[in-house]
């Protein structure tokens, strides 16, 4: 994780990187080497080494590529004619785990700064409360970090001073590390962000910021679901037994998981479920939506979360599914209702999110289902009379999906013949937060300053895009959510259910 950290650090790494040539036998976890990727040499970090049938195999993460493209490569694909980067050696001051942790705290905090302001406010206030527990003088201890970070660590520090060695042990268990240096580097990461994260998880949705919490190596080789075989993108905490299995079979209806094809076939002969186990709240001639309560359908929702974790990097399964509702989109045929995608939603979101996690299953991606899901999530918000926004962080695909949806909605509203537009009204009409409207307008370069003041510009590009879209819709037929067909009232949860864990 730490090397990734370095590559993301906007301020650059102050640590000098040790560079040199390596032999195959010298390669170890944490080394960054150039690896052949689709005919192109890319720098990649080795995350795991295994020997299969006498051949060493390397699990690599390509720099500046999404984790979903991480893969096992043979030794031939590693270019040893070029120099490799060695992982940073253990620093002498690393023994002082407290200072290391402080350093990490500041790092994590810096990451926090990039998040939405509301979160930042809250976390800063938490941090400042705890800062009084800080041992004086510790903050002044020099670290490898720059002076700016030092200043920050006055505000954010660890609460626990006595238990510092513990996380280190945990880390050793967690990652299969051959390299002590790499481990030491990763330690502080773990220590700070767990506290931060647990606090966050307890009070908030189901997204995580913390990379270290998640195992970095994909654990499932392949899944079989419905008519498809799918390569997972990320780690998911399915039973650990599945690590050795070539294919995990997932029942399309109950989402149960089986490592053995006979087992799966036996299960299919017994399973009577034909649709998500909840109430259908929307139906048109194309899709149906089912509403599932995490508390009532714990097994199904857990299965769904395990499945979606395979494709969502930032999703966390740390806590149970009880406080969420799951809105599942299905297509129907004589076999049953096939899960296409879903989004989860907190029963009560402190930060006004209307979506926690959202996913179109890979086998159905790039077919316009994502837009339907997003549209439906905003339709629910409209019914509730609230403005909504998806929980952050968004994934790359999530960002593009939302941007496309927002663009379409906003441009349509602006082109309905009105002469003036008001950002808050646009938000109210589309159940979008003001910030998201602003984001969209600015991103499309539509908010400009004319001589009289601010104006909204319908740019040629935006209008062309919209026209192209409309032409396409004419040919292919427009898929959209019809609000008339939604039979739904915002569910109400009593104070008691809140007290007793939803």
């Amino acid at each position, binding site marked *: 994780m730490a090397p990734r950290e370095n590559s993301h650090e906007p301020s650059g790494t102050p640590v000098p990187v040790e560079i040199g040539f390596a032999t195959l036998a010298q390669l170890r976890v944490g080394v960054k080497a150039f690896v052949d990727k689709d005919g192109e040499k890319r720098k990649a970090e080795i995350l795991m080494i295994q020997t299969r049938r006498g051949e060493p195999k390397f699990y690599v993460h390509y720099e500046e590529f999404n984790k979903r493209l991480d893969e096992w490569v043979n030794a031939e694909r590693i270019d040893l004619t070029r120099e490799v980067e060695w992982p940073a050696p253990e620093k002498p001051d690393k023994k002082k785990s407290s200072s290391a942790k402080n350093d990490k705290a500041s790092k994590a905090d810096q990451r926090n700064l990039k998040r939405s302001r509301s979160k930042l406010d809250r976390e800063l206030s938490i941090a400042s409360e705890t800062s009084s527990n800080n041992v004086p003088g510790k903050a002044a201890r020099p670290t490898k970090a720059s002076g700016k970070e030092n200043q920050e660590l006055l505000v954010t520090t660890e609460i626990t001073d006595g238990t510092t060695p513990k996380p280190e042990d*945990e880390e050793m268990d967690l990652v299969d590390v051959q390299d002590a240096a790499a481990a030491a580097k990763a330690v502080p990461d773990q220590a700070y962000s767990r506290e931060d994260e647990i606090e966050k998880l307890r009070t908030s949705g189901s997204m995580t910021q913390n990379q270290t919490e998640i195992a970095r190596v994909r654990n499932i080789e392949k899944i079989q679901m419905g008519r498809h075989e799918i390569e997972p993108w990320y780690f998911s905490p399915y039973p650990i037994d599945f690590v050795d299995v070539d294919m995990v079979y997932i029942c399309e209806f109950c989402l149960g998981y089986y490592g053995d094809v006979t087992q799966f076939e036996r299960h299919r002969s017994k*399973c009577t479920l034909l649709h998500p186990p909840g109430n259908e709240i929307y139906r048109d001639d194309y899709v149906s939506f089912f509403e599932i309560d995490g508390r009532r359908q714990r097994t199904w929702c857990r299965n769904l979360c395990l499945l979606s974790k395979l494709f969502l990097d930032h999703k966390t399964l740390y806590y149970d599914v009880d406080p969420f509702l799951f809105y599942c989109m299905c297509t129907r045929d004589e076999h049953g209702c096939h899960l296409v995608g879903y989004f989860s939603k907190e029963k009560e979101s402190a930060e006004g999110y209307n979506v926690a996690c959202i996913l179109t299953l890979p086998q159905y991606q790039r077919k316009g289902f994502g837009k339907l899901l997003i549209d439906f999530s905003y339709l629910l918000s409209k019914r509730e009379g609230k403005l909504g926004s998806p929980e952050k962080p968004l994934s790359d695909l999530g960002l593009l999906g939302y941007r496309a949806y927002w663009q379409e909605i906003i441009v349509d509203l602006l082109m309905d013949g009105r002469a003036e537009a*008001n950002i808050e009204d646009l938000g109210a009409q589309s159940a979008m937060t003001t910030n998201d409207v602003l984001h969209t307008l600015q991103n499309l370069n539509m908010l400009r300053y004319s001589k009289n003041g601010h104006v909204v510009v319908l740019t040629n590009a935006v209008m062309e895009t919209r026209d192209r879209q409309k032409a396409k819709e004419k040919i292919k037929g427009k898929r959209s959510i019809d609000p008339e067909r939604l039979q739904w009232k915002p569910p109400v949860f009593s104070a008691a259910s809140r007290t007793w864990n939803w």
Partner: protein
Amino acid sequence: MTQRTTGQRFRQRKLSTKQNLQIIHEKDLEPLGDDDATRHIPKVETGVEKGEEIEHHLQAVISAAQAASQGGGKIAQLYIPTPEAVASKLQYEDLYPRRFTQPSTYIRFSSTVEDTVGCPYCMTSEDAAWLKAYNQKRGKAPHCSEDEFEYVINFFEQTTQEKQPYAEVDTAPVLAYEELESAFDETIPESARRFAKDIYVHWKAERERNLNKPLMPTLKFERNLDTDDADPYVCFRRREVRMQRKTRGRDAQVTEKLKKLRKELEEARFIMAQVKRREVMIREQLALDKTIFQQRREITETKRRLSIKGDDEELLINQKPAPKPKPRVDTSALQRGIPGMGPKPQVTRPDGRLVDSDLVYLDDQLAKKSEAIDGFIEENLMKHQKWNVGWVDATWRPITPPMEQPAAKSDFRRVFTESQLPTPPASVSSEEAGDAMMIERAKQPEPRRSTRIRFGSPPADQPYKDQSRYRRRTGRGGRVMIDRRGVKRPRLDDEPIDERVADRWKYAGDSSEDEQIYPVDWTDNLHIRYRIMIERQGEKQHAQHQAAAAAAAAQNRRAIESHQRSASGHLLPPTNRGQ
């Protein structure tokens, strides 16, 4: 919060999200200051993690879109590459049969996965191979079906889970067959039990191979171990912090209520069960009685046929004389008449007595008792009289004086004084006020209901207050006494009340001791005016609400009553002494 941030961000440029902005097309936009404007536009956060924002493919797509929005012309659609999803080789049609029919209404469904997947254990290929070999070995003996096999294994698994919840932690040995057999319950069908012993061998082997861990892969849940927190495989933890909050009083109350409700429901259930038991027993008893009766009849028939003469009583009466009469339920049930039984057994009991003679009624008993008491008194009275014959009883009267009749009103006579009004005031007391109202309602068929609206404080003989009455009576020893009523204490305007004078008037009134009476001059101008006012008000209101419902009238009355309460001087004496 979002508003605040945006507000901060744009304050210097004075962009308000509430303000209407003009919409213009790009072609109408004057090319002035464009450069400046773009420089001023701050980048809004994408919401993607910074570390990922720089990713190659995302950047490619974003910059392509950026270029397009800046008017860079048409740009090829770019996608973020994702790992592939390919068609599966499995036979979909076999695995997922076509059995879904869509209902016309929206589906409503609440069964859980556990309800719908059947037996949770599913055979592996090893299991299938073993089962096949096993069935072959059995030859013609009944074969074990796959379902039965799964039921048995599932039962073993679940029993183990119950008995050795920490099997995988403390490496306990696999449970012995005897221990499992003793736990057999309804989750394992009868037909499967005969294979259990054989399957156990296979199951044990599998289990041992798996280090006594459950055969079906399970998720890792928290086990309160230290390593839990760091283990990425541990998932779906309880949000225990929420649970730790102190139980509020309200919650405790609710719990108590639920406990009580449960207890009461259980009691009710218990009672019902007992009632059922009783009724069943009664039915059995009746059946027995009937059998006895029928058998006796048969005996009599037989005796008659065989012309055996003898004591029928022996046969017809229970040999053991019943020490207690049969419970009443029995007789009442008999009385109700049981179908198939002749009229005879309904009237007589097996011993020949009439059923009714058996019954003891409370009324009869009471009557008998009171008769006895009356008789006793009568008898003693007669005795007493006989004993007193020839004697004059001079003691009787003095010892028990006759009950004095309550002073009859007629004994009193009115005395007119100058302090009296020529006509009695209409609304002095509440009772009279009530009467005054009743006059108006007199046409109604309903009789006076003044008692209903009377309030407690004024005594029933209130009218005596304003009319002085006197009575003469002769006391013991020939004393002549004059009783007076309604006599007011003379007004003592300025001087303080003499103790002796006060004493003289102490017992002048009829009122009870605790009732405090304020001396009031009813002829006083203030009072007269006040009473007139009330009268008029009442009339006015009545005129208004003539047609109003009884409820409204009652309210009026109440209003007037409250006026009079003060007017009557009991609660609020008008103080006008210094007039």
